[in-house]
């Protein structure tokens, strides 16, 4: 392992052994519907509360990823997982189902990229051989925690996004083939002073732009070197802003930038700017993107999921929204 700036380079890059995704009924209609391993018709997933459903989705993604990797439970050295709910209950409760150690991470919607970064660092440093990285979210449980009761008849502002119901997980390890995690850039917390909790795209875009540009600098690459620059859940508005912010600094990412939130839903109607939530980047990466990478359609992908690190308390007290983005570079 070596380091330049805030980017870690892995000498013997860990590889993605397997991946799995579970998605809800609304997400099934969209682009990931035919790629996800489990698609739900019922968003309750047979449970009696939405929190339990979220936990079950996450657990299903983890067990499926482990099963597909061909590893036994005792071969897994660590599970790195987190979610959006208070005290990351979905992740810790899902970890009850397994015998391997669990490290809880919280980075809001960028949990997927943070857990891949940490997992790769553990493997790259020789502290683990196999790591599972997973995260998920549920529309109804997030709505209850961050906004209003589901049945409350209020309007959604046009900047708002729709929390994705879904979970995704992948297994990192040592192998001779598969997608490599070559390097990863740790994000800095950026806060430009956006206070509108309905405008997450605008709040998170500076963090994404900052991490992406630092990654270019640290690795001496430019946007054209990547087949895909994938952000997490900026939505349509945030994607436009991140393109403007990077263009302003001399990087033109407009031709290969794709946002998971922007592409996840088929028709953007009541979702307005697109999907959001930890499950957004997790499901899109672990189904659509990695499948296409394995098929050789993308050779080099920069995955920079973004997270808004707010709580209902901080926004209630009038604080602006600090945001973060971690980037990992995946290569075939």
């Amino acid at each position, binding site marked *: 392992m070596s380091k330049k700036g805030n980017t870690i380079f892995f000498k013997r890059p860990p590889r993605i052994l397997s991946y799995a995704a579970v998605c809800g009924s609304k997400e099934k209609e969209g682009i990931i519907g035919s790629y996800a391993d489990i698609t739900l018709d019922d968003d309750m997933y047979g449970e009696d509360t939405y929190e339990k459903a979220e936990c079950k989705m996450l657990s299903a993604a983890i067990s499926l990823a482990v099963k597909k990797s061909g590893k036994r439970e005792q071969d897994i050295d660590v599970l790195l997982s987190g979610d959006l709910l208070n005290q990351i209950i979905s992740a810790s409760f899902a970890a009850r189902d397994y015998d391997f150690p669990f490290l809880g991470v919280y980075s809001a919607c960028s949990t997927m990229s943070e857990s891949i970064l940490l997992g790769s660092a553990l493997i790259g440093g020789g502290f683990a051989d196999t790591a599972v990285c997973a995260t998920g979210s549920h529309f109804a449980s997030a709505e209850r925690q961050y906004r209003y009761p589901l049945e409350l008849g209020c309007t959604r502002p*046009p900047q708002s996004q729709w929390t994705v119901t879904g979970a995704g997980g992948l297994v990192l390890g040592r192998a001779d083939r598969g997608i490599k995690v070559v390097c990863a850039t740790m994000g800095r917390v950026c806060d430009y*002073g956006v206070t509108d909790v309905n405008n997450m795209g605008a709040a998170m875009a500076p963090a994404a732009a900052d991490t992406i540009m630092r990654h270019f600098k640290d690795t001496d690459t430019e946007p054209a070197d990547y087949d895909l620059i994938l952000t997490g859940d900026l939505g349509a508005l945030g994607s436009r802003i991140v393109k403007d912010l990077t263009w302003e600094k001399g990087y033109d990412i407009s031709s290969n930038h794709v946002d998971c939130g922007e592409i996840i839903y088929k028709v953007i109607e009541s979702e307005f700017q697109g999907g959001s939530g930890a499950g957004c980047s997790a499901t899109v990466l672990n189904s659509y993107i990695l499948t296409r990478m394995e098929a050789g359609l993308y050779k080099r992908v920069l995955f920079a999921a973004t997270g808004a690190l707010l709580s209902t308390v*901080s926004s209630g007290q009038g604080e602006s929204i600090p945001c973060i983005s971690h980037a990992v570079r995946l290569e075939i």
Partner: protein
Amino acid sequence: MTGKTRENYNRNYLEYVKTQDPPTKHLKNCASAFGVGGLICCIGQFIRYSLSFAGLSGDELAGATSVILIFLGCLLTGLGVYDRIGRYAGAGSIVPITGFANSVTSPAIEFKTEGWIYGMAAKMFTVAGAIIVFGVFSGVLVGILYLFL
């Protein structure tokens, strides 16, 4: 908390975001609020006329009409219809008494999973609490003004 205050917000960026924001369709929102809100009031008036034919009058009539509308608001919330109406109608379905019924019923349904006492009953007024507080407060204020006029 340190670091970020209103003084060191990135004003340029906030100005720029404003130019990118999709506009709220005020005219369309007003029109649908007017239409749906008016329709709810018409239904209320219809119920009122029907009840007065049935022989009710005065306070009884007003009370019975409200009770029926509140019941309908609760029923539609429970059936999962009211939030759809609300998403389209905005203030049109929030302002009438049915909207108040919705704001009490929806958290009650939502928090039922946390138990009958600390969940359903305690959190029933998370949304409606503000309406009650300011409703009573403005009632008192108007009452005082009325006393001196």
